[in-house]
């Protein structure tokens, strides 16, 4: 027997449109954007399937070339050289038919977050004393805060600006190069190349598993949100929303743990022994060696310029 209230018609009035149109909440936008970004960043191999410069290079040679460029970026002391490498990366992206907008957007989303926070104070005379370029503000008098001496005038120094340019340039170039590598290489081939480059098997396996169940977890997160949305009558306070997000994060963590075990079992069942084998392991050809040699020459040239600038 169903309870009596369940047998009655729902007393709520039929939905009609009154007042202002509602807004999409921050949470909804975040989940939708995360799902879209994950799909485009990790699950979409369409860029790797294009016929461009980097796509046709054998993954090991490409990995070696990109690593060489990243190492050069790390050792370069001149902002001019570092930004030159960044420019060269965009040139490589264009030759690989990867949209410049895509790679710059992806990089400049993170650079302000991670490098900008450090670089901004480093431009000022509090952190990097030197030749002042312009005054940010007048503080009135000199103050001592711990080991720091805050001068009466807060200025951006030439040395500070160069340090910040160097730091941001290094991050931008390195992240762009890494992004270019992943965008132009299928994941399974990239992991195979890492294995051949003697990256520890445990690390490769962890990466492979992460990639493999990422899609499922993103889908689950989106479905959980939709399921909740379909039963949401009135919007909750932001505090309650945060509580819900935190609880779902915990749930997803547990689910990811279970999934990793299941996927690993499915891999074992099909003979996986920790070694990644791909269908068409590309052979290193003269073209690949030429590409690697050219990239090493670029690195050498950049280092030479760095010494004399």
């Amino acid at each position, binding site marked *: 027997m169903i309870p009596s209230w369940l047998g009655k018609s729902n007393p709520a009035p039929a939905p009609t449109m009154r007042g202002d149109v509602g807004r999409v909440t921050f949470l909804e936008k975040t989940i939708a954007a995360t799902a879209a970004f994950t799909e485009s960043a990790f699950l979409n191999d369409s860029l790797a399937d294009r016929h461009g410069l980097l796509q046709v290079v054998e993954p090991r040679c490409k990995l070696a070339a990109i690593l060489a460029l990243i190492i050069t970026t790390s050792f370069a002391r001149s902002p001019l050289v570092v930004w030159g490498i960044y420019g060269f990366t965009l040139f490589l992206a264009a030759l690989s038919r990867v949209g410049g907008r895509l790679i710059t957007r992806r990089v400049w989303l993170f650079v302000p977050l991670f490098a900008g926070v450090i670089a901004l104070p480093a431009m000022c005379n509090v952190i990097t004393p030197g030749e002042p370029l312009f005054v940010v503000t007048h503080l009135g008098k000199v103050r001592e805060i711990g080991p720091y001496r805050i001068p009466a005038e807060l200025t951006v120094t030439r040395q500070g600006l160069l340090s910040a340019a160097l730091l941001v340039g290094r991050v931008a170039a390195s992240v762009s190069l890494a992004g270019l590598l992943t965008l132009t290489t299928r994941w399974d081939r990239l992991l195979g190349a890492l294995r051949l480059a003697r990256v520890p098997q445990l690390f490769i396996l962890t990466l492979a598993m992460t990639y493999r169940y990422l899609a499922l977890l993103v889908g689950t997160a989106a479905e959980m949100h939709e399921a909740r949305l379909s039963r949401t009558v009135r919007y909750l306070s932001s505090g309650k929303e945060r509580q819900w997000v935190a609880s779902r994060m915990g749930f997803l963590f547990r689910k990811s743990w279970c999934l990793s075990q299941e996927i690993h079992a499915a891999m074992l069942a099909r*003979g996986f022994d920790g070694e990644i084998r791909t269908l068409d392991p590309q052979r290193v050809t003269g073209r690949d060696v030429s590409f690697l040699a050219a990239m090493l020459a670029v690195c050498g040239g950049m280092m030479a310029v760095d010494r004399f600038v």
Partner: protein
Amino acid sequence: MEQDRTRGVGANGDGGAAPCPLFELAGVHYSYHGAIPALAGIDLAVRAGESLVVLGANGCGKSTLLKLLDGLLFPDAGEVKAFGTRLSEAILETDDFRRRFRSRVGLVFQNPDIQLFCSTVLEEVAFGPLQLGLSPGEAAARAGDVLGLLGIGALRDRSPLFLSGGEKKKVAIASVLSMNPDVLLFDEPTATLDPRTCHWFGELALTLAQSGKTLVTATHNLHLAERIATRILVMGEDHRVTAAGDPAAILADRALLVGANLIHAKEPFRFPI
């Protein structure tokens, strides 16, 4: 056909005189986290060339049984023998045994999403053969053959993540068939499939059985069991074997099916379906 149906706690799934079993389970107990029972004293023998259907309600331990047969789980008590060798984690760490075992036994998981992890359908189907040491050329040719057999050749360059449920199931089956195992373990193969794809699976299972493959299919789909089983094992909600034997006798026993929660007492069900 066997007529050795037995009932009750600890019932044995063995039949009469038959070839040496591929799998032998004796007194197998398994529980998750040491607290949630899944199998409670299973005795079973799986013989070469038979099509054994394991019938049981949700949560009775069918999937766990298949994972034990595939050497993915190991019993808390009792033993599982495959091809005359007791399965253990240590023996499956042995390269030679693992390679031989994995090439001879294939498991199609209930959820195809966990089984499909490569970039394209072709790579997915070639994954197993490559792991077994076939050259990329041989693996690709074998994958192409299996895709053709299952009628999904047009999907070869698609990403498995973005296929429909039926297509995913077909690719999951293809990914195991390409390893050419002698024993195929199917975990709820028709769950979430539409009627046409369910029928397709029945036809495929019959074809595989006729070609000499040994099939172990865990399901609660009685229609499928009637079509493909040469022997049926019924698992009760107490995680034990309730009955085993001839499909005709099992499927005609309404009280047994009701007791195992395979049909409802008020549901009109007659054998043959």
